[in-house]
């Protein structure tokens, strides 16, 4: 697929083709502006390619109407570098919010949220506000929020970008654990340390082109 943003001199993604199997763990690496984030945006149906197709969970989302997007997003969890937590809500409320706004009842939230907070290692810190948590803990809340709905795919856009190396490793362990439950994990990063430690599939992008696609790869 190809994506050219308006006013851009060259395509952000140029004739890129990549296939990710269910349950895989894939790193997209490459310098800033190489087009890795565009891939995430396409998977989220935030942008559509000018040419080619994007197929997610067996469904062609290229031509998906925008009113179908909300329901589609429920099968995808998302984690970002800047956490994107609601500052005036506790860890519990942040995760519960994600459930309640898609129509789950409070009773469901009461059952599921403590479970998932326990899973990400935040047992006992449910009622802390984001500013009372460390960066790593905040990212755990974000992961819990992304995973609470048991998505098929977890997208992580530089999830360790704001964290120190030790905390980064902990977050990676968490993502690895989530991957082992059968969830496909797609992670964009330029953290070479992590890529080298994890030894998972690495897709390297440069100037909108795939220059390497390697199983059990390193940052290189």
């Amino acid at each position, binding site marked *: 697929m190809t994506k050219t943003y308006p006013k851009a001199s060259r395509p952000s993604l140029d004739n890129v083709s990549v296939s990710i199997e269910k349950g895989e763990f894939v790193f997209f690496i490459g310098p800033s502006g190489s087009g890795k984030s565009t891939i995430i945006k396409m998977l989220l149906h935030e942008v559509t390619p000018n040419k080619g197709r994007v197929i997610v969970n067996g469904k062609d989302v290229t031509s998906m109407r925008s*009113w179908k*997007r*909300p*329901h*589609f*997003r*429920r099968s*995808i969890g*998302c984690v970002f570098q800047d956490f*994107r937590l*609601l*500052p005036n809500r506790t860890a519990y409320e942040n995760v519960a*919010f*994600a459930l*309640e*706004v*898609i*129509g789950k*009842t*409070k009773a469901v939230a009461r059952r599921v949220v403590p479970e998932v907070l326990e899973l990400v290692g935040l047992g006992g810190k449910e009622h802390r506000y984001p500013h009372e948590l460390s960066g790593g803990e905040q990212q755990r809340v974000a992961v819990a*929020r992304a995973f609470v*709905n048991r998505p098929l795919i977890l997208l992580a856009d530089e999830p360790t970008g704001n964290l120190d190396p030790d905390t980064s490793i902990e977050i990676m362990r968490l993502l690895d654990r989530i991957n082992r439950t059968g969830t496909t994990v797609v992670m964009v990063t330029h953290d070479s340390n992590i890529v080298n430690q994890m030894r998972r599939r690495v897709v390297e992008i440069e100037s909108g082109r795939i220059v390497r696609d390697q199983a059990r790869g390193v940052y290189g």
Partner: protein
Amino acid sequence: MRMKYVLSEVLVGLWRNVTMTLAMIITMAVSLFMLGGSGLLYQKVGDMKDLYYENVEVSIFLKADANEQQRTDLETKLKADPLIKDVTYVNKDEAYKRFQQMYADAPDLVNAVKPDQLPESFRLKLNDPEQYKNIYDEYKTSEGIDTIVDQSKLLDKVFGVLTGFQNGALAIAIVMAIAALLLVANTIQVAAYSKRREVAVMKLVGASNWFIQAPFVLEAVVAGLIGSVLGLIALIVLKTLAAGSSMAALEGLITPISWSEIFLTFPLMAAVGGLVSAVTAWVTLRFYLRV
């Protein structure tokens, strides 16, 4: 639970920006009050036109010295005229009776006038009141005629004034509605901005569009409805005040506006207030949230 969430969001939203909410409600109320008033006047003018034009007459007053021959000639000619539906001859006694009736509350005036001081006249009903000019041209030169008076000319003036009021109220209503519209758009933008984090998360986790938009749209609708209630109250106050003041003197001329008519205006005001707010809010969100 979702309904409860939406409603509490609406209340929080209205309260968070309370000065803006008040400005929105007041402008909306004035606009809807003017709209309601204009609607009532329109209805009244319609009623009165039906009532008055039904009874409108062209009167041909005879000179005091007009003789029997002139009168019969004129009557024959009038009765044969295809423009005229009905001709009534009013002699001095009948004219005096009408005069007594018309000025029943001014006995001094009635006592000062004797029957033979009043002129005889023909009262004509026209098939088409607009044809007055032709009648006038036709008969102005006939012998023994003093004046020809067209009541509809007077009515046209009265209705001209009323229609002027009505158009003025409508114009103010429209100008205020534009102001209200801009205030709604602005309020919604501010609300959406203050909730941008929540909205971003909701979009991310796949909350449905209506669920994201509903609190904002309802916020505007609630303000619109409160505005329409205030507009109704203003109309009620106006009627109460008018009943006890100099306006009451006009009651004979203008058919009075009943309570039921005022309350029947409310659905119109509420619908316009609610709908305009909802559409404005929704359109603003489409540009601003892009959900």
